[in-house]
């Protein structure tokens, strides 16, 4: 590749490090966790699962925001391919201590007896770090929510919550505050000097371009590329299935895909915007989307995962799809030939299949504002509320005219090979009164409409009950609100 480099640059231990994949014979799909643990002085990050579910591997990535600030984000280092850290600062547990003095978070964990076996501790502390730096007000609920991506099998969590609360309620300037200016400068230099990253060898090609134009051109010329955005889905093929990924097109450095636009009648969300950044932007006009994002994965997952990735995964239990369907969202696809717009309902063509053409990528998701009097809700039923994949999920849209149903849309996840619209159930409700009796009748129809499967998460019979109950819950929640 012309105009490209085979190395990445990042900041570790305060210094700019250059890692040349060719020269050092490192595979580009090496995870950040594996890399750190191969170094003599970075064994604090642990592998507990290699799939994003335990948080023991958590480190913090500091990166320049679009406004030029340093943003600290906790991430699962087990899910990050090395080229993704290009232009970022990696902060590990080893970096918190400075000149033999513990960081206040470390002291708090120590003082509160927040470690027993200690294996989970570095991960918890690193998830706490961005909270500490953000200086937002934290109550117990917020702390629990933020730390839900970390598992501890020993303590029962209480001392961890107490430690986090005590240290984050009174953050002081730490050595990171002092170094912020110089770090920003270094990161800017890396950014300004870097070209696209192209690594080829040992049966693998990895391309991480800098611009959307480069992406589209490359995509047009290479039909066999595997796209990654946050890689929270794709990384598992490496860490769990131990596959060698042959040809990767990495979109994580493309700022055009991280856009967010608010227009009069709609919003447009860049396919590569991390979920954690979407939530605050949409919570007023699309509260149900924000609610869905609240329960999506964990802090660390939301910091990596993207809406584009969730949609293109086309998983029957992907959380965004039913919601986007209820909001009548549209997917913008782009190739060298131009753009086309597909309603999300038409985008999914089968089990984990979409209508995406070989030369296309998803660039944006457009969500029109809901009209007057339209109620939308989303429900996720999973075994554990936090950091779990839905057994059954449901998104509903209803419009009532004097309690008569004049518009109804019902979408389920987990009931079939794709997210599905419950057409028969909708039909039985349409034009009827919105009351318990009609809902209960509709549930009888619903119980015949789909043939869900039994798997590790739930049984077919359980899924049927869940689906029906969610409709009842929706009815109940809407009427409860009316009474208020």
């Amino acid at each position, binding site marked *: 590749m012309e105009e490209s480099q085979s190395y990445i640059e990042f900041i570790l231990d305060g210094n700019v490090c250059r890692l040349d994949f060719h020269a050092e014979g490192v595979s580009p799909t090496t995870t950040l966790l594996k890399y750190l643990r191969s170094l003599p002085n970075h064994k604090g990050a642990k592998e507990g699962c290699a799939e994003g579910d335990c948080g023991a591997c958590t480190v913090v990535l500091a990166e320049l925001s679009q406004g030029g600030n340093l943003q600290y984000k906790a991430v699962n280092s087990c899910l990050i391919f090395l080229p993704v850290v290009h232009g970022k600062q990696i902060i590990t547990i080893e970096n918190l*201590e400075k000149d033999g003095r*513990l960081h206040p978070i470390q002291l708090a964990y120590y003082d509160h007896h927040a*470690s027993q076996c200690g*294996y989970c501790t570095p991960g918890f502390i690193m998830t706490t770090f961005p909270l500490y730096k953000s200086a937002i007000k934290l109550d117990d609920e917020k702390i629990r929510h933020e730390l839900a991506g970390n598992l501890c099998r020993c303590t029962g969590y209480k001392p961890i919550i107490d430690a986090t609360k005590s240290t984050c309620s009174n953050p002081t300037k730490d050595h990171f505050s002092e170094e912020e200016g110089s770090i920003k400068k270094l990161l800017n230099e890396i950014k300004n000097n870097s070209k696209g990253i192209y690594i080829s060898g040992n049966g693998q090609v990895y391309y991480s371009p800098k611009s959307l134009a480069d992406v589209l051109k490359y995509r047009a010329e290479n039909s066999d590329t595997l796209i990654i955005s946050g890689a929270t889905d794709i990384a598992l093929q490496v860490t*769990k299935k131990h596959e060698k990924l042959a040809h990767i097109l990495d979109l994580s450095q493309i700022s055009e895909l991280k856009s967010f636009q608010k227009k009069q009648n709609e919003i447009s969300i860049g396919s590569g915007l991390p979920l954690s950044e979407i939530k605050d932007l949409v919570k007023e006009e699309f509260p149900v989307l924000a609610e869905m994002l609240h329960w999506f994965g964990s802090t660390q997952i939301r910091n990596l995962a993207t809406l584009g990735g969730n949609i293109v995964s086309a998983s029957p239990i992907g959380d965004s799809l039913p919601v986007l369907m209820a909001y009548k969202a549209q997917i913008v696809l782009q190739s060298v030939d131009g753009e086309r717009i597909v309603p999300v309902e038409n985008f999914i063509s089968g089990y984990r299949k979409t209508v995406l053409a070989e030369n296309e990528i998803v660039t944006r998701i457009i969500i029109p504002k809901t009209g007057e009097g339209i109620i939308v809700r989303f429900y996720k039923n999973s075994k554990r509320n936090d950091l779990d994949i839905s057994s059954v999920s449901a998104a509903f849209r209803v419009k009532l005219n004097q309690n008569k149903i004049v518009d109804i849309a019902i979408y389920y996840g987990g009931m079939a090979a794709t997210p599905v619209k419950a057409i028969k159930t909708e039909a039985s409700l349409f034009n009827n009164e919105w009351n318990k009796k009609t809902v209960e009748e509709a549930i009888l129809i619903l119980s015949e409409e789909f043939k869900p499967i039994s798997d590790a998460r739930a049984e077919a019979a359980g899924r049927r009950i869940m689906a029906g109950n969610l409709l009842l819950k929706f009815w109940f929640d809407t009427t409860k609100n009316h009474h208020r």
Partner: protein
Amino acid sequence: MNNKEKHESGLLHVTGKAVYIDDMPELPGLLHGFVFTSSVASGRIFSFNIEKAKAVPGIEAILCYRDIPGENQMGPVIHDEPALAEETLECIGQAIFLIAATSENTGREALRLIEIEIEESPAILTIDDAISARNLLQPPRKIECGSVEKGLAEAENYLEGKFETGAQEHWYLETQVAMAIPGEGQEMKVFASTQHPSETQALVAEVLDIPKNQVEVEIRRMGGAFGGKETQANHVSVWAALLANATGKPVKLRLSRDEDQIMTGKRHPFLINYKVAFTGKGKIAALDVELNANAGYATDLSMAILERAMFHATNAYYIPNVRIVGKAWKTNQMSNTAFRGFGGPQGIAAIENIIDRISRKLGKDPAEIRYLNFFGMKERNITPYQQKVKNNRLHVLWEKLIHSSNYSERRKSINVFNAENEFLKRGLALSPVQFGISFTTSFLNQAGALVNIYKDGSVLVNHGGTEMGQGLHTKIRQIAALELGISIDQVKVTATNTSKVPNTSATAASSGSDLNGMAVKDAISKLKKRIGESIAKILSEKYGYSCNSEKLIFKNNFIWDQPFKERKISFNDAVLQAYFNQESLSATGFYKTPNIHFDKVKGIGHPFHYYAFGMAVSEVELDVLTGHHRILRTDILHDAGNSINEALDIGQIEGGFIQGVGWVTSEECKWDSKGNLLNHSPDTYKIPGINDIPEIFNVELLKGYPNPNTIRQSKAVGEPPFMLALSVWLAIKDAVSAVGDHKIEPDLNIPATHEKILMASEKIKQEIQQL
């Protein structure tokens, strides 16, 4: 001394500097070990071809059972567990080949290239299958007292039923790992994440066919264990040692999370059948209970676990006529193993569910029925196995907790809440635990220690116990410092090592500090005697009197004569004087628990040194439409005797309780019809997360009740709190029961997942419609 002393590794934990086995520097030439395992639950190996796999560059050895120099055995008690399968395959995940590779990628590639032809045969996958096939592991065990037949025949009230508890995966954060390093000659050093280094040492020696003195096993700390590394940590050590022996190079073997979940045993699933007779007031008159355990394919510790389940099948209750039959069934699953509570939870769950049913049947509050049936203080205090319950704390715990948890008021407001809400139901429950402390295999109740004092006064303590996070080394350090009267900073507890203290028992059965603390105390009392004699001589000369060495006090870094406080010498000076006096400053210590015995045939004896007591009250709120519950509040009052370290003990209680909450709620293991475990990663196996703990969580220790005859009058605390989580399960059941206005017995087993709760609620709704 601060009895909230911090964890001795706390600073290392929070800085990421604590070294676990996978963090140790890798020696040059270190190879990575991999295990090729069975993909069928039952079958015969027909043929195999490892040539292609061997040809992968970087593969240095592929071993099968024929390459084992010694005995092909890893069974800890009964030798029915081969290190590598020979011809027969008995479960999915059973080891067949071992691979040593220069890197992870090459090792994984070789795994894919091994070709094997297997003749599959029908598998026994459940307890029901095993019962039909009469596949008992060993003859049934029985504990019996009074006359059950008579008691049941004369029953005023009678119930019978069936109840199940599920498997539970340990989910220690650090998966199984060992590193074996060949030394000169036959030597083999193994760094192993094991709760039982002596057994690891023994098995490594046996498979390699070398004397045990050639094998040294060391463990500084584990990243959690919970029983899962009591026997099953031996496997990875044995495999690593076989590969290290074959290649002459160091080998590290660490299981991935999926491998760990698939290959290692779990908490035994139980199927419980029972018949119970009780009076109109709710006093239990007779109990006939059969405990069926799914042992998996090998014996492992199943018989001891079954036995403990039997001991605990009456929990805190006196029942005059009892028959407890225990059966362990052999199935084609991974061999189930020790897990915090060791059968106790299953036995206790059985009786707690029965009491719950009795209360519902009689329309009485279950907390009252529990109280009514508690072991008495002076009478009604003999267990079915004829041990007298002494120092009974049940009544004091009950009274204090009912009061502090505001139980009765909350019961009333819950009733109001439930009447007002159709889709939300609340439930409340109290549950006690009375847990017998000691290894029930009597000879295991022994421990050793080695204490060295160096010339500068610093003290090094080694003992047979292992550190898995529970804080054992912290307590031992406190004990040593207290006994020597010096500051804790002067004492260091080292890694557990079989060459320092030999022939140790596993760190298990909550006995770590009880046994090892006593052994350390024994060693220290020898050292104090030696130092004391030197000092007595010096003081006698200096002050011109006859100092009695036995009267010397060791305290505050000084040693002084009891009647003459000013006649003193600093500990450090005393040590130096003893050295000049040519006294040995190194001593071993030993302890065996007195008076422990049990006759397995008669089912009679005195298996426990004492009982640990605890009690919990939990309240939950159930969303009837989703099956989700929130634990609104839990109050725990626990008896740890005179706590050696309150912070550590509270940590054990909270952590054990939450682990128990996982067992009774979200942790579910399912297998497909071929015997494949479906929930083999945290993606689908859900341990409690930070939001699953009680919203209000009050944990207190019972104060003012010292335990006679134990180290510093303390009590074991590792396991008992686990079972307090049954209060959550019972509260959930109470809430489900409220769906039918408490008229219908909910059909709920363990675990009560959101799905199972929904099914049970649904069933009640349908039954009500039919009423």
